[in-house]
């Protein structure tokens, strides 16, 4: 697992209060990990802070799974 992937998963475990084993690549924040719309916003903000990036709202809307978050950050993190 890449460094980015493990950091993303750690944030998800912390913010959504889920077990690490549930955080599969294809897992959806809302459908599989119990996040509501505010949780999702909070996750995006935590990713921005952790990786020092700015994720525009129209991009954030497409980040609905663990895998999508990792891919986006791998492409955009400095």
């Amino acid at each position, binding site marked *: 697992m890449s460094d980015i992937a493990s950091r993303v998963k750690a944030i998800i475990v912390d*913010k*959504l*209060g889920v077990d690490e084993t549930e955080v599969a690549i294809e897992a959806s924040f809302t459908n599989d990990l*119990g996040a509501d719309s*505010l949780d999702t916003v*909070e996750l995006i*903000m935590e990713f*921005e802070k952790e990786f020092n990036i700015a994720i525009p709202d129209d991009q954030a809307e497409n980040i609905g799974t663990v895998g999508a978050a990792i891919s986006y950050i791998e492409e955009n993190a400095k």
Partner: protein
Amino acid sequence: MELKRVVVTGLGTINPIGNNIAEYWESLKNGVSGSDKIRQFDASKFKTQFACEVKNFDPNAHFDRKEVRKLDLYAQYALIAANEAIEDAGFDLEAEDLTRAGVIWGSGIGGIKTFLDEVTGYANGDGTPRFSPFFIPKMISDIAAGHISMKYGFQGPNYGTVSACASSTHAMIDAMNYIRLGKADIFISGGSEASINEAGLGGFNSMQALSTNNDEYKEASRPFCKTRDGFVMGEGAGALILEEYEHAKARGAKIYAEIVGGGMSGDAYHLTATHPEGRGAINAMKMAISDANMQPEDLDYINVHGTSTPVGDIPELRAVKAVLGEHAYNVNISSTKSMTGHLLGAAGSVEAIASILAIKNSTVPPTINHREQDPEIDPKLNLTLHNAQERPIRAALSNTFGFGGHNASVIFKSFTE
């Protein structure tokens, strides 16, 4: 139209002298002080370094980790007290029409710790706004009512009351009136507060409202005593289940007492000081007695606001004498804030519970920590000093007064069919 009767069928609390109703009553009747050195943060630079904090509190024993992050402490206390009250009332929630069950919940300040943390985070940053999406819904002082409704599915009237230290008394009076008018059958009512933090303590310290008696912190909350020097901050929650009498009877509920009247008034006088002759207090008490269709002589106990401030205690006792006349010498008067400290927006709820338990147990909880008679206080008044006093209590009146001149009085009566 004929008003419906309203009874109390469930109680719950978490407060500085008890983490549930049974513990609370044990401490009340034994005169236990809840005051101690502040543990929630380092208060060494503050003028006041003690408070009445909730003891042995572990949020993780009540909520999962995700819930804890979304609930300000004031909302956590609210849910804990509400849960005890709901369980105590013994509802079969599946069988209830939950559109006729509401929540009216008071908090003077709401999530001040959440506000402090979020704003501090912003101030310490580089100007980029990184406020949590939970900042606002954690902080606002109506959110406790929202959380309680979501937990139990209560879909009736739902809102928060804000009137500083009278908040939860206003909540109970509103809830009582909706039931009287037939608008609902059940309410979870009461209030919660959790403002023992840097901002809360610092703000009240600057107002010179708090006792600074750091040397005698255990006994600093001493209402009516000549040496009183301010109130002691408290925190926690009190929850009451108010229920329409026929509804309670039909399901065979246990009934603690009947809530029979409420009075509300404004001082229209000063930001923080009570009117010197207690005119707002007089009006609130008179209105409550009249609302209850009672006479002053029907009261046996008055749980006073009595915060232990130099300027507040005297006008309140003057007001009691003005309303009760000679009967003021027959009633027991006590300030349970001498034990719990001042729970601000939650004060009305925990003191209502004290009044109800006093009626039920025929025992008046004491005013502790009193040392020296204040020459401005009539020595013939029975302030229930030091020790609890046993007596039958037909009815009890509880006063709360808030900064802004908000006054609210509520009357509970021993239940008879």
